């Protein structure tokens, strides 16, 4: 079997297992898994920029929130049906990521990280400032009646699971294909040695810009889906913490691997879930995880498996 075939089978198997799990898992865990799959889409979007292109952003919450608020505001204030509102959410992210990409890519390295952080912070403050519409810190709920898509009620647990799975699978398979394409390989070239890639004739600036936009749009799609499936729009999702989470997930699961983001979200979600008996200070666990990962396992779980056992792992 070639690498591509192995990769295809692996991803198909993951999708099938996730589908089968619905019939096996208790309701509580199935609910968690739906949430994990949507967050994994966010993480995959982040991974595209961080893991494949080598750009570390500290501001992805602005993309996630742009999708989420674009959707939520379109439903609540615009009175649009859910499908159109999701598209508005994605369009909002597209605009944000184009503008941010254009400006932020004038900087590099640490300056890029800080610029992204500052833009995201501005976004968060703007949400608070327009509290009249966004309901500020409190956030707002999207009513069940407004959460129907193609005749399905997405607030129902079962349908929610399948919707999450469809979104997740589409992203996973798309990314698996994308990173194997010329574009994906060119992104890796930028990550590995930008100057060399440029002197091979690659327009590295354009590649980075496209990566920011794609990564932003995926993150925004996850944000819109989160609002649609779980019915709550809140400014928490725009805070620095939500910019740090995808970094943590991707580092934990394995940057630059297709399955790393999902694995990272899965582990982190249950780590926090399990530790919540012990302490309310769940970010303590996240902090320790970040520290230990950077110090001792920068490749993450899937990255480590690839490096030591399964070299073909995509």
């Amino acid at each position, binding site marked *: 079997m070639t690498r591509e075939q192995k990769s295809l089978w692996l991803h198909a198997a993951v999708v099938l297992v996730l589908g089968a799990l619905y019939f096996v898992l208790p309701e509580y865990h199935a609910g968690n898994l739906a949430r994990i799959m949507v967050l994994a889409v966010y993480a995959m979007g982040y991974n595209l920029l961080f893991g494949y292109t080598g750009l570390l952003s500290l501001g992805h919450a602005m993309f996630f929130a742009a999708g989420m608020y674009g959707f939520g505001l379109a439903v609540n204030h615009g009175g649009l049906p859910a499908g159109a509102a999701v598209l508005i959410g994605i369009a909002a992210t597209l605009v944000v990521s184009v503008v941010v990409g254009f400006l932020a890519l004038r900087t590099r390295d640490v*300056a890029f990280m800080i610029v992204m952080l*500052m833009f995201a912070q501005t976004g968060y403050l703007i949400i608070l400032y327009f509290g009249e519409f966004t309901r500020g810190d409190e956030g707002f709920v999207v009513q069940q009646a407004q959460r129907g898509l193609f005749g399905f009620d997405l607030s129902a647990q079962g349908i929610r699971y399948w919707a999450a799975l469809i979104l997740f699978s589409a992203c996973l398979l798309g990314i698996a294909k994308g990173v194997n394409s010329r574009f994906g390989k060119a992104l890796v070239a930028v990550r590995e040695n930008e100057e060399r890639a440029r002197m091979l004739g690659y327009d590295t600036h354009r590649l980075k810009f496209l990566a920011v936009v794609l990564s932003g749009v995926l993150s925004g799609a996850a944000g819109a889906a989160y609002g649609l499936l779980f019915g709550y729009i809140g400014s928490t999702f725009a805070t620095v913490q939500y910019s740090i989470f995808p970094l943590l997930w991707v580092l934990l699961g394995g940057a630059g691997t297709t399955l790393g983001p999902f694995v990272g979200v899965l582990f982190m979600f249950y780590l926090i879930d399990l530790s919540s008996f012990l302490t*309310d*200070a769940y*970010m*303590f666990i996240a*902090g320790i*995880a970040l520290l230990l*990962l*950077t110090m001792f396992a920068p490749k993450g779980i899937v990255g480590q498996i690839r490096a030591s056992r399964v070299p073909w792992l995509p």
Partner: protein
Amino acid sequence: MEFGPHLLLASLEGAVSAAVLALTAMGLSIVFGVMRIVNVAHGEFFMLGAVLAWWIASMIGAHPAVGFVVAIVIAPLAVGVIAAVADKVILQRIGYDPERTIVATIGLLYILQQAALMTFGPDARPVTPPFNQRIDLPWFEFTKNGLGLFWPWGLSITSYKLFVVLAAILILTGVWLLMTRTRFGLIMRATQQDREMSQAFGVPVDNVFAYVFGLGAALAAIGAVLVVPVQQAHYLMGHDPLLLSFIVVIIGGLGSLPGTVIAAVLIGMSDGIISVFFSPTLAKIVATMAVAMVLVFRPQGLVGKAAS
């Protein structure tokens, strides 16, 4: 209150926040200047300073002045030691790689913050100022007898706030003397210029870095101890100082000490003034956006010189 007295009041409040900000941002700037790393946990060292100050003051329980004096000596020292240990245990191990350092200090941020939540609790707690006389301030008006002074109601400042400004000036002068007039300062500057060369000349760079990281954190803690009688200690209080310090350091030019002080005064004063007259959220939006734009279009800072 009339506009004039109101502005004076806002400026005085602004001067207090500028003073504290200058200390905190100076810590961040020195760490960036010498070690070339961005310490995202800097705000948490500030918070630790405040929380420790509360803890020390409430332990001692004698006259507030005694508690305060002990706190301003012990808290920064303790925070400095914690930071130096963090440097040795964490940052040295990852070789001060810029990106990994940011990720590691984000981890440290949450660990410190949440540790404070678990021990200190979620409530904000006040520290009694060592002295706190109200000083009424006069304003002038033109009467038919010429210029006259009067004391508008509410236009006043406390002796403690004046002390904060004065203390900050003294400490910053001390830092400047340390950097320019001592052997330690010379070593720091040499390390800043050329790390490998300094090492070759026998400068124990690892130890210098631990001291510098400790010094940076201690400066933030001093700022926090000074401000805590005015502002109350809280486990989430590190967030704003971190952001504002970033803003100051970036606007002032990364690693430039005079630039940092000028920018701190500028940002602290204008933040105070804008917040009084407009919404504080709007002030913050303007400030964060300004920082992003400065980094994008003028990465050497507003005060710094253009690199050739």
